[in-house]
């Protein structure tokens, strides 16, 4: 049977659409995976002066060099991890990404590192300075290229001799008061209250560590002791009342008012949800389209490809119709009807017989069947008209 050759067409078309969609989805997924894979390394520790960041802003180079020089470098990325690291009087603590330090984490860090030989804060910002000493001020120094700043501090800072070294960075922060690398009445490196403030944080970065004596400054500040604890603070360690939140800006009745509104909303739901009595149901009668059986029988013919049966039914209907039009007896044999029709229309018997005779070839495809039905209809129309 050839019925299967025509029937499945819409099915394959639909499948092709889904296959195209699948291909697009797979391509998008692949692109995502590749993008994630290729950016994996650089995105992992994006912080400035991070000891694991190999980018221009990172400080992996200096951390590696220190480790090669025999310094035991421990990296702590949270307050808890920092508190687990041992800090004794032969330990230097360096804090990068200091903008992540909240007052509470700063306090925790200082408590834990109270025994440390020195604590270096890389470019602490104004908020942290206020925590350390409210009288301190700072100024951003747009140090241009090729403008080295000399140390000019014979005493050094926190027991580290820096005299004779130059530092050269794109941008630095200077702090008010006495210190090394002075610019005006401020200094790039200062020691305050047991903390070393390193205003030239860019001197540690991979990009600028090789300029002037940047490397020497970094190594001297961080490499004095056999242990170095590198603390990269995390803002999420801060306790909630550390910072200014949106909550402190809003009036204090907003919270309770929201509760009131929510309760009113619940009451509104309870009010509207209660129906005035149950839904009224309708006992539905049986409704069938009377012609439905004939329709489904037609579909069944088509599915099984029973063109022979269909053609026979059409032929019989056409013969009955023609016989009635030509006023033939209802019991007239098919051959007689064919002959009468041919005579009536003035066409060869053979042409009419091909349409009306049951024994003639049945249409081989659905397309032929449609043509056959149209031919029969034309014949009936001609008989009726003439």
């Amino acid at each position, binding site marked *: 049977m050839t019925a299967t050759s*025509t029937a499945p067409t819409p099915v394959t078309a639909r499948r092709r659409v889904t296959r195209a969609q699948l291909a697009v989805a797979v391509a998008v997924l692949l692109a995502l995976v590749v993008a994630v894979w290729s950016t994996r390394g650089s995105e992992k520790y994006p912080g400035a002066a991070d000891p694991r960041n190999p980018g221009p802003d990172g400080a992996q180079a200096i951390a590696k060099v220190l480790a090669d020089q025999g310094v035991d470098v421990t990296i702590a990325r949270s307050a808890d991890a920092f508190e687990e690291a041992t800090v004794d009087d032969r330990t230097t603590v360096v804090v990068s990404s200091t903008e992540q330090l909240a007052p509470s984490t700063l306090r925790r860090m200082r408590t834990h590192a109270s025994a440390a030989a020195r604590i270096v804060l890389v470019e602490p910002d104004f908020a942290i300075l206020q925590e350390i000493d409210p009288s301190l001020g700072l100024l951003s120094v747009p140090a241009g290229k090729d403008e080295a700043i000399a140390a000019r501090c014979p005493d050094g800072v926190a027991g580290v001799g820096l005299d004779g070294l130059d530092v050269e960075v794109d941008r630095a922060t200077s702090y008010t008061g006495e210190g090394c690398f002075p610019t005006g009445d401020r200094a790039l490196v200062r020691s305050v209250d047991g903390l070393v403030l390193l205003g030239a944080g860019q001197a540690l970065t991979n990009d600028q560590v090789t300029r002037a004596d940047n490397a020497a400054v970094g190594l001297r500040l961080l490499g004095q002791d056999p242990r170095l604890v590198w603390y990269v603070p995390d803002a999420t360690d801060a306790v909630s009342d550390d910072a200014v939140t949106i909550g402190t800006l809003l*009036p*204090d*009745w907003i*919270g*309770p*008012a929201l*509760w*009131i*509104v929510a*309760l*009113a*909303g619940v*009451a*509104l739901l*309870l*009010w509207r949800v*209660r129906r*005035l*009595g*149950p839904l*009224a*149901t*309708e*006992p539905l*009668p*049986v*409704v*069938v*389209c*009377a*012609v439905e*059986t*004939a*329709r489904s*029988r*037609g*579909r069944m*013919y*088509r599915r099984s490809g029973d063109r022979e*049966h*269909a*053609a026979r*039914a*059409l032929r*019989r*209907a056409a013969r*009955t119709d023609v016989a009635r039009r030509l006023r033939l007896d209802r019991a007239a044999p098919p051959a007689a009807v064919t002959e009468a029709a041919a005579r009536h229309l003035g066409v060869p018997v053979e042409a009419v017989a091909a349409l009306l005779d049951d024994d003639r070839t049945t249409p081989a495809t*659905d*397309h032929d*069947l*449609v043509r056959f*039905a*149209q031919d*029969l*209809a*034309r014949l*009936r*129309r001609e008989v009726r008209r003439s």
Partner: protein
Amino acid sequence: MAISGRVPLLLLLGLVAVVLRPQAGTVWLWLLGVLLLVGLDRLLTPSPALAVLTRRPPGSVRLGDPASSDLVVAATGRRLHLHVRDAWQPSAGARDNRYRLRLAPGDQRRLTTSLLPRRRGDLRATGVTVRSWGPLGLVARQRTYDVPGAVRALPPFESRKHLPSRLARLRELDGRAAVRVRGQGTEFDSLREYVRGDDVRSIDWRASARNTHVVVRTWQPERDRRVVLVLDTSRTSAGRVARAPGEDEVDGMPRLDAAMDSALLLAALASRAGDRVDFVAGDRRVRARQRLHGARDVAMRLQEQMADLDPVLVEADWDLLAGAVQGFGRQRALVVLLTALEPSAVADGLLPVLPVLTRHHRVVIASVRDPELTRMAALADEEVAAGSAPPTADDVYAAAAAAHELDRRERTRAMLVRLGVDVVDADAGELPPALADHYLALKAQGLL
């Protein structure tokens, strides 16, 4: 229990309190206060059972005509603030059936719900919901009571419009007494002058000899014949058909409704003609059965009988129905079977019992034709004629199936005619007058 819109509003008022005293405790205190008020109101709410409900039955109405149902609410014991809903099944078409009322003790109020039935049959009230509000209007107690009531929507009898013309023809039959066949069932009526066109065989020569004119005898058409209407409510009656060719069958009516319409017209006509009409309806069992003889308004009583009949998806038990017909009496009758000319149903159920019926009675089968079937069979034909798009393969297969079905029906019909049964096969809208005409033709020939 139900709350009103005042409860959320009262809660929202708490915003003022919260602004004045911005603490979390204020929220809970306010909520507690509102809950206390609600609880108090709930305690003071009268029970909805204090409202006494009685319904006056709305009775019968012809399908398509409006009706109304009266519900009387009386307050006993306490002052009531009520919210009442008189719920009906959707096809009863109840509108504006929610009421708010305040009743003093001893008061009673009548609530009139207007109904517009959209379906034939008994359309029932599904319950009366009473919501009784507390004195503060915050809380209500709600109960639904079953207050039975039903409006009976009678078959519309749309074929009523054909009745006057058929009655006129019946009178014509009466006065002219043009009974062509003498003998059984014809009675001598009177003598009158011969006019051209009268049958010469009816000339009364004896009377003519005593007169200067030629005189003919006239006969009254037979009276007091029996007509038995058998309504088939089995699966074939559930099919929905278009009323007229070209109409969508979705707007059509079930075969059963068309058959009812035909039965009503025939019953009205036959009772006017002096015949006795009996009615039986059923499928697996007899669903309705009545002798309508002597009733003043036969059509009305038949409508009452038919109102609650619905198609059932079972095969008809024609043995049973034939038995019911015989139960009306052994006297020869015109038995009208209102069923569908469905080849398989006829061959399996009806054919075996037909000989029993035809031996004693004159049997007419009135069938509702489906114009959609004819249209489907002629589909290819129409489309070629209209010059529109050629038919699809689906159309052609459907046309073949329809042609096959029509052929089987034609054979069934031929077989029934050979068995001595008259078959009246017409579209839903045409069947009532066609059946009435057939009845008149039989009556004119004295074949009843």
